[in-house]
């Protein structure tokens, strides 16, 4: 028993004496990075921008003033700093010389890459974030046609910081979004080319409040579309509408997407539908050196808004709306497909992976020139729509009846 006690003492001794505090970083000693931006400068260097939280602005309670955001109203919440260097780490080291705290990447929310960098190739930059033990796969990766630094130099009206705001926006999945992990997986796979979210700083609404002498016209980061990559290089953008088609094609990630169609009976009037469930099934067929893809999209939709006086209690009307909606979705998907497959000639949708799964022997022959093969592939599209629900009303209340 005595010896056991001594063993415990031994451990304590060792712990306290030897271990010291190598990795120890007090909370007051770290600079929490919320957003990261990487730009490619004109002289071919890398410009790294960090959006750092200023913790004093986040203090609740004892700091005086009201809780949470109220207290922070008149102070700067974030600090955006940037530096240039040959590599990301080089730039970071330069930043470290300016910032009196340890840079801390563990809470990074977004990684924004600018267009020049994307066109030049992102692999060189991405590696830094792979190796960092603190960097997470859940970071949202986004591309912007503007300068990433400019995009990060913004703030949000509803969230504490613009980086967090974009994070929440992404989590709501109102547009096409991608996590770092999926991005690297797509980069590594031969059967898929990555697609990034496109973000832009846009003038957005008017901030108002008592005591605001002049009206702030305010810029926020918004999701505006998608960036199409070939390998690790950007080759084009998709706008909002085309991105919707893209979302159909990518694993049917379309929950809560809106579809507006013309009314089947009243010309000029519209019906708005919301997609509640969407699924895409990709069936690759390889026949005599020809690649064909049979896509089946299945969607369940709800009626949300109605301008005409259609009565949805009638089964044939439901049928009609379903057909028009199917055509509309088909149209959208077709547009995107044409643009990506026809214009950009890349496989951004993971069709290659699907092909690999089904025809593994052929795949090994085709995989090195998959994008060319894909550009020539034929895609057949079938859309099946089911009207599920019509909200609280069967038909619109009408003046006529």
């Amino acid at each position, binding site marked *: *028993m*005595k010896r*056991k*006690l001594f063993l*415990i003492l031994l*451990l*304590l001794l060792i*712990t*306290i004496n030897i*271990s*010291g*505090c190598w*990795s*120890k*970083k*007090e*909370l*007051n000693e*770290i600079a*929490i990075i*919320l957003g990261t931006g990487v730009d490619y400068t004109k002289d071919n260097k890398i410009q790294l921008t960090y959006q750092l*939280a200023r*913790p*004093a*602005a*986040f*203090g*609740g*309670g*004892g*700091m005086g003033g009201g809780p949470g955001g109220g207290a922070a109203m008149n102070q700067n919440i974030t600090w955006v700093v940037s530096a240039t260097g040959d590599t990301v780490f080089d730039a970071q080291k330069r930043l470290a010389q300016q910032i009196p705290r340890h840079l*801390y990447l*563990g*809470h990074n*929310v977004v990684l924004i890459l600018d267009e020049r960098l994307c066109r030049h190739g992102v692999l060189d930059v991405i590696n830094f974030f792979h190796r960092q033990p*603190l960097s*997470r796969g859940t970071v949202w990766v986004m591309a912007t046609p503007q300068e990433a630094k400019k995009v990060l130099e913004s703030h949000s009206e509803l969230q*504490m910081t613009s980086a*967090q705001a974009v994070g929440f926006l992404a989590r709501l999945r109102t547009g096409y979004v991608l996590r770092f992990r999926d991005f690297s997986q797509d980069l590594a796979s031969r059967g898929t080319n990555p697609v990034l979210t496109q973000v832009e700083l846009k003038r957005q609404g008017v901030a108002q409040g008592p005591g605001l002498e002049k009206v702030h016209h305010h810029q926020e980061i918004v999701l505006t579309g998608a960036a199409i990559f070939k390998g690790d290089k950007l080759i084009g953008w998709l706008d909002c509408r085309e991105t919707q088609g893209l979302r159909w094609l990518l694993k049917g990630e379309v929950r809560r997407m809106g579809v507006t169609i013309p009314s089947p009976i009243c010309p000029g009037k519209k019906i708005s539908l919301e997609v509640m469930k969407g699924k895409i099934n990709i069936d690759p067929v390889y026949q005599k050196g020809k690649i064909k893809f049979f896509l089946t999209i299945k969607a369940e939709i709800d009626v949300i808004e109605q301008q005409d006086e259609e009565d949805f209690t009638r089964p044939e009307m439901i049928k009609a709306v379903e057909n028009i909606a199917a055509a509309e979705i088909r149209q959208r998907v077709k547009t995107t497909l044409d643009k990506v497959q026809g214009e950009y000639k890349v496989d951004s949708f993971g069709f290659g992976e699907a092909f690999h799964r089904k025809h593994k022997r052929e795949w090994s022959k085709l995989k090195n020139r998959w994008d060319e093969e894909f550009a020539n592939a034929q895609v057949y599209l079938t859309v099946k729509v089911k009207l599920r629900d019509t909200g609280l009303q069967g038909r619109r209340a009408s003046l006529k009846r």
Partner: protein
Amino acid sequence: MFDFFKRLESPGVKEQSWRSQKLKTSLKENLTTLHFILADCYDVVFREFTFAQLPDIRLALIYVDGLADKIQVSNFVMRSLSLEVPPALPKEYKITKAQAFDFIRDRGLCIHQIGEANTLGEVIDAVMSGDTALLIDGHAKTIINGARGWEARSIEDSKTEAVVRGPRESFVETLRTNTSLLRRRIKNPALKIEIMPIGKITHTDVAITYIKGVVYPGLVTEVKERLSRIEIDAVLESGYLEELIDDNPLSPFCTINHTDRADKVAALLLEGRVAIITDGTPYVLTVPTLFNEIIQSPEDYYQRYFFYSLIRLIRIAALIIFLTAPASYVALLTFHQEMLPTALLLSIAGQREAVPFPTLVEVLIMDLTFEILREAGIRMPQPVGQAVSIVGALVIGEASVKAGLVAPATVIVVALTGIASFTLCYSGTLPLRLIKFPLTMIAAFTGLFGLICSLIILITHLASLRSFGIPFLYPVMPLSPAELKDVVVRAPWWALLTRPHLLGKENLHRMKTGLKPRPPGERK
């Protein structure tokens, strides 16, 4: 080699020379000796008087004022012997000097418990424990009258383990009252109460209590053996014994539990344990003790089992929080900021911005303050105690946050730790309260890695402990899944069919199977 302390062996308490000396026939001689021995004992009363039947026989009563019941002694000893002639005595019966002893013993006294003694030691022991000695001239022995009666505290609510529902009686300082509390609960001759005096000077009575047929016989032998090994001058509280018979003297964990609740002791006896009742203290030791007693309370078994199963889980959570919360807080804040949600981290970072101390110091200050307040609350005179602790907690907590010395989050963590400890059995939390401090420090130096390592060491240590042969962590280690029903949750009574296997292997079944209540139609 370096064991200096072992050399200085205590010589033990000297045996007094008169202890085994026989009484003399002469009363005078005896009284002289006793006067000599009991010199300067202000509270000992010597009362000489003449036997009414036979005036040439002198009698002497010796008792301790305050321990013997004076009314009983005067009414039923002195009055009957000095005034009243036993009326029922046959006329022709003649009392001789030689018969006097037997006569007085058999016919003269109206006392329930009588004994005889021939040595000075026995007489003194009896007098000192509150009995009254009656010396009779011409006889070399005395009659010991068991007319004890002293001022004692009445039976009150348990002070340390309060319950909402359940018996409120708790033990008091008097051994006999305590045994009666047990006997009233277990009305069975199988409840054995064996007395063993311990303490060379104090002669404290220690009762070894167990239920024959339930307890494992080897356990009783072991308890007796360990107790009989003790040679100490005094036993003022069961804590003396506890440390002398402990299996693991060098462990911070106490493997002998104590309680002042009569119902808890009865329940533990019924599980096959042995209780050691010490005269002069309301705290009864129960062995063997298992670690899980820390999360058990007698009330668990009286209230509806659904809710109290939840309470058990809450207590387990409280145990974990209590032990690790300050340590993990420090580790998270100084090493592993990535493990906190972003919003929380930012909020804590904001709070900490103005705090001038490292997190460790901050936590230690608060922890220490809390312990001081707790100790102050106990030691203060009762009416002030609570007020002081509440005011202290509020004022110090509030003021230190206001002054920017401590972050509000730290106050929350430390307060939570303190509150969590109150859900557990008080005595069980003491070692954990001690361990909490090194744990916090280790966490501050080595982060979660150090914390996990320390916990592994802690668990290993606990796993290596035994309490009277039973592994301390039983039934978790060694794992006995069926018995977790009374540890992790509290199974309903109709499912608690057996006693804990290792303890109650003599008589495993508590009840008939199939006692689960059913609607009348489905019975039989």
